[in-house]
């Protein structure tokens, strides 16, 4: 499969109920507005750090998360806000973490690049590219040894597929039939480096064959295509049939991080991808398919705004960590 343009929302509802479809839209909308909002807050100097925004990739986290069980584990990257929100980490806890507050998801010890919450099965996000792949395999090994049936989902950008640790993890997961879903978010650029400068093959998914695991490429801006593929891979993993490499073609609409002026790519290319923005596509689908009406969706959107404003208030009102907290959580006593 090439990186050519993909068709619009494909297929039907895939057994999803109206409630599930609406929840997926809410999740995508929450991610989009959360990211736009934290970008503004950053520009206003109200939150420290750098930011790696998920804008444009929402369909992947939302689609994959819809296929998961509460006891599954999710491993994320330096671009984790979307994965966290879709997995159910509270917006308040993420926002407070970005503000560096004691009430943050990681008590202010993680920050933007390490957002996670073990209570909803999300490890602190791992910001070393490819570093999460062996750990995902390890979680999956534990699932198999303990016969617990949970699946480990490993999100990564296409750049990670050129890291040695990633290859080692893919191979081990394959030879031991581990319940891992490797989700490649191929957004075309590893920081500024284009896919074709870093890969001789046409797709990341092709590499699955080298490990003896199934690999497939889907339109990562089509949330139902992502859901369908993830659901099938997760079911396969739970049956003990091993890992899958799922490549989702997408595009990050922002720069790599806050200081990126995007001078390595054309505005025309950005416009092309904007036309395939996952949010309006799925919104239009919901209306056309009669899943929801305009009032219903507007209500959800208003609700999302309120939740984000509430998260900001919570973060701003929260205390900073006590300097003594510097010394806690290094070792478990």
């Amino acid at each position, binding site marked *: 499969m090439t990186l050519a343009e993909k068709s619009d929302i494909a297929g039907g509802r895939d057994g999803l109920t109206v409630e599930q479809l609406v929840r997926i839209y809410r999740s995508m909308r929450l991610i989009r507005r959360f990211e736009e909002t934290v970008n503004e807050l950053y520009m206003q100097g109200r939150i420290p750090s750098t930011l790696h925004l998920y804008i444009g990739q929402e369909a992947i986290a939302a689609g994959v998360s819809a296929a998961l069980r509460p006891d599954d*584990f999710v491993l994320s990257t330096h671009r984790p806000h979307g994965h966290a929100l879709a997995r159910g980490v509270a917006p308040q806890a993420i926002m407070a973490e970005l503000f560096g507050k004691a009430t*943050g*998801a*990681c*008590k*202010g*010890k*993680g920050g933007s690049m*390490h957002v*996670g*919450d*073990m*209570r909803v099965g999300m*490890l*602190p996000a*791992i910001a*070393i590219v490819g*570093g999460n*792949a*062996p*750990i*995902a*395999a*390890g*979680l*999956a*090994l*534990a*699932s198999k*040894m*303990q016969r617990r049936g949970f699946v*480990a989902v490993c999100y990564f950008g296409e750049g990670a597929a050129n890291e*040695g*640790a990633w290859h*080692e*993890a893919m*191979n*081990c997961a394959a*030879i031991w039939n581990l319940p891992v879903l490797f989700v490649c978010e191929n957004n075309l650029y590893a920081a500024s480096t284009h896919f074709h400068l870093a890969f001789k093959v046409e797709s990341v998914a092709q590499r699955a064959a080298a490990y003896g695991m199934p690999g497939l490429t889907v339109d990562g801006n089509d949330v139902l295509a992502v859901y369908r593929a993830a659901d099938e891979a997760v079911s396969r993993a739970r049956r003990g049939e091993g890992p899958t490499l799922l490549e989702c073609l997408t595009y990050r609409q922002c720069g790599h991080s806050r200081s990126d002026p995007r001078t390595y790519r054309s505005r025309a290319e950005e416009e092309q991808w904007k036309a395939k923005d996952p949010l309006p596509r799925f919104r239009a689908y919901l209306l056309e398919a009669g899943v929801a009406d305009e009032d219903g969706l507007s209500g959800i959107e208003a609700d999302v705004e309120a939740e984000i404003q509430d998260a900001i208030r919570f973060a701003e009102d929260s205390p900073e960590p006590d300097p003594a907290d510097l010394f*806690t*959580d*290094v*070792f*478990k006593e």
Partner: protein
Amino acid sequence: MAKMTIAEALRQAIREEMRRDERVFCIGEDIGVTGGFGGAFTVTLGLSDEFGHERILDTPISEAAIAGIAVGAAIAGMRPIADVQYGDFLFNMMDQLANQAAKLRYMSGGTLSVPLVMRAPVGATARGAQHAQSLEAFFTHVPGLKVVCPSTAYDAKGLLKSAVRDDNPVLIFEHKLLYGSKGPRTEKGALSPVGEVPEEDYTVPIGKGAVRREGADITIVANLLMVYRALAAAETLAERGIQAEVIDPRSLVPLDEELIFESVRKTGRLLIVEEDNLTSGWGAEIAARAADEVFFWLDAPVKRVAAPDVPPPFAPALERAYVPGEKQILAAALSML
């Protein structure tokens, strides 16, 4: 009590811990293959007969995966004992140890723990530069990791058990010349310190050093193989009427610094011996802490004996010059008296 080598003591510790707790498993290269070696130094020999290949898990040659899989399994409630054939290969898994194992608990705000054990053979043994290094000091510099280095069979069993039961990542450094491995894996020049090891369950606490020989004139701190070389030097010193106190820290993180300081307050002299390269070795850290804490008890400058700042060489003649021996320890001690 039974007489055991360190390899046997480690094997018994693993066997007992795996019987006691079904969460414990071993992961590494060539550790359980039927007809294989039982690891590079026979520590896991025969264990797959009792526990099967799922719990004595042989991996591809993929060190980053070994460490990362151990991290993930530990987070999900298992108790992995990971095995690296030579300590030098720890560099292949550095991200997983230094960025992941050591930091995930902190990054998570204390909501997860990483109870893994990483076993690593160290020491120069006529294999050249990449199968020889003593790497303890590297890992003492990474907050979130515990570092232990047993030099006797008793400590090997007791410390490995403590490491398995610890809720944090623990690196165990084992010296190739101390294993007492038998058969085709016997090391030339090995000391084979066979020791009394209780056959029942016991632990040696992580963070407690041991006085290997008492003395009032000079404190010698040494670990692993250097414990034995320091003890040999102490014998020679005793013939000259000088009583050296030899301290084996056993753990470098956490460090039983009070045991060392107490000794220095008695002897007024501190000599540190390590097989690692001199610059920024763990000996430098102990010297710095001693300068802070017991400066006014010192009657002579603190001295270190360590490998020089060169890669480990191959030729036996060069290796003998590289690894600190009794002679250098003796000379350093005498220069302080």
